[in-house]
């Protein structure tokens, strides 16, 4: 495939990134999707929208998040210089709020009065419940029964924030099923309801819109790195479930040829174990949840159940822009297993005094693999996109400890 002039111009007017993306939704939703696309285009061009979003980002979310030189991890690796973009320090503890803040302002502009969302790890659910509380809107969060069990703290946080958490008992009872159920709600309540999708997936314009709201991560990181080091980073690393924190970091740097970019999928028990969430490594292009992208599926086009210790990465698909960046070769997609993530989780806690979420622990696992082999002046920038408080029960269980 020939490389395009820019990796940052997509999607086209039909929402396609190469052959990926698009709008594969039920007819009932199509008029609304088209309306959303127009409303977002208007907001994007409106300085007042950006001013309002900027105010909330500064005073409510707490941006910019710091860029932190992880000295002890760097020393531990004995190679490249490792930096963390500290998006786990945002209000609600992850990057998810960046997107929710943007979308709730858009929902208000569109006159919508009810908010729904899906959630896996619960981070997006908490972020959505948070902005819904802030703007006084009723909010329903769909969450798989399995995830409710393994992310209890986040479930209670959502309830405290006034959201209704609806357990999803169909299919694998995880993130993909929560998304099915949210789509069923949306198709039923299409007139008054705004669906805040939490990642760079779903029908156009969601993948581009969520990316745009998350792109603040990369924009800040570039400026901060220029201040700290006077140059661009050499390698970016981020974990990928749907891929919103990764797109948020990567997008700013896609047209910088000197910057290597690594996306880290969740290998689960191993890429060939049959218990994995690595859609690019082990999937095939397909159509699910409104877009064409790489999906874990069988030869008959039935969707496989994903597996990852991290509820936030436990999804059989990936954002369509990642599928495209994979096929054009701009981003290199690798993976880390449950065990590698668990090891990185503990190492980061002990060496840096930062308990990371299990999601970015996958990114860190990859950093721990590559940094020792890279020369000292090489700068690795990793997105530490969430904090690990929510994961302490899961990690304790994996380590065989009783709390």
């Amino acid at each position: 495939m020939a490389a395009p002039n820019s990796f940052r111009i997509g999607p086209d007017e039909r929402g396609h990134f190469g052959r990926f993306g698009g709008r594969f939704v039920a007819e009932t939703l199509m008029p609304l999707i088209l309306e959303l696309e127009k409303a977002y285009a208007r907001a994007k061009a409106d300085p007042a929208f950006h001013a309002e979003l900027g105010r909330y980002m500064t005073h409510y979310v707490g941006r910019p998040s710091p860029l932190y030189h992880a000295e002890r991890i760097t020393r531990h690796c004995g190679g490249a210089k490792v930096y963390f973009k500290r998006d786990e320090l945002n209000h609600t503890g992850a990057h998810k709020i960046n997107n929710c803040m943007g979308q709730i302002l858009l929902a208000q502009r569109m006159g919508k009065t009810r908010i729904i969302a899906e959630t896996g790890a619960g981070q997006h659910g908490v972020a959505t419940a948070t902005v819904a509380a802030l703007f006084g809107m009723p909010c329903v969060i769909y969450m798989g029964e399995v995830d409710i069990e393994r992310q209890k703290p986040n479930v209670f946080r959502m309830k405290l924030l006034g959201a209704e958490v609806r357990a999803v008992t169909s299919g694998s009872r995880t993130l993909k099923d929560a998304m099915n159920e949210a789509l069923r709600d949306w198709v039923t309540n299409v007139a008054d309801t705004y669906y805040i999708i939490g990642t760079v997936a779903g029908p156009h314009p969601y993948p581009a819109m969520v990316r745009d709201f998350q792109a603040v991560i990369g924009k800040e990181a570039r400026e901060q790195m220029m201040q700290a080091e006077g140059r661009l980073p050499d390698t970016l690393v981020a974990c990928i479930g749907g891929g919103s924190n990764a797109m948020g970091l990567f997008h700013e740097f896609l047209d910088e040829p000197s910057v290597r970019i690594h996306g880290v999928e969740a290998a689960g028990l191993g890429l060939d174990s049959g218990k994995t969430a690595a859609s690019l490594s082990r999937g095939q292009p397909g159509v699910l949840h409104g877009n064409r992208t790489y999906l874990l599926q069988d030869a008959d086009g039935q969707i496989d159940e994903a597996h990852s210790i991290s509820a936030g990465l436990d999804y059989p698909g990936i954002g369509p822009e990642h599928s495209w960046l994979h096929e054009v070769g701009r981003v290199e997609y690798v993976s880390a297993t449950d065990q590698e993530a668990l090891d990185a989780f503990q190492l980061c806690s002990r060496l840096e005094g930062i308990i990371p979420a299990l999601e970015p622990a996958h990114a860190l696992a990859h950093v721990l693999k590559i940094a020792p082999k890279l020369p000292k002046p090489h700068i690795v920038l990793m997105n530490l996109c969430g904090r690990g408080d929510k994961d302490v029960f899961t990690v304790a269980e994996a380590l065989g400890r009783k709390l």
Partner: protein
Amino acid sequence: MSARLSRRLARLAAERRKALVTFVMAGDPDSATCLEYVRKLPAAGADIIELGMPFTDPMADGPAVQAAGLRALAAGMTLDRTLDLVARFRKEDDDTPIVLMGYYNPIHRRGGKAFAQSASKAGIDGLILVDLPPEEADELLPDLRAAEIDLIRLATPTTDAKRLPAVLNGSSGFVYYVSITGTTGAAVPEVAPVGAQVARIKAATRLPVMVGFGIRDAARAEAIARVADGAVVGTALVQAIERAGADKAAAVSGITALVRELAKGVARASA
């Protein structure tokens, strides 16, 4: 354009009869039982048979149709077996049109051309894909046309006047009007607004308009068929299979009895 479907629609129009369109899930509760009751549907009064293609993630379906798809998948149903079921039905019935209904991914995985050719060979007449709106349908339409399979489009309460031409453009066979905003079997449609919407669609196309979602019994089928060209019933039928449980004979007799009832309702609307 499918010859079988156009012949059937022309005959219904000539006889001034409303159509009963029955939806069942291919392979529910297993392939052999499904073939047995599908064979009985025409005699029980089904004018057109919609056959669901089971899918793991049926986003637009309510609990009953979701469960039907899972039963079929658990019993080993695949796309090839669905086509085989139709081919076997065709050995005895070459008149009743069969329309496959489902989601795009299993067909995408197979490839449009390969699917269209084998579907046509099996005796499929039409295709309804819930998650392939007109905006994305160009990639499949030429293959379906070459195989003389109708792509039947869905119009919904949210399809406004501005959008309707885009939905109708490229559609053939009939138009499927989704009577409610919601999933299959979720709510019961009101007759008057459905009638108004059907009239609006009929003003824009010469294709017949069939109405589905939420039509549960003969009375509702009659009322809806009065204001449209036909009524589609699905959830109520797959629930008859669910109720029968392990009793295969009860599944067959239950579903045929229900179709006979529904057909009486639709016939009253024709009179």
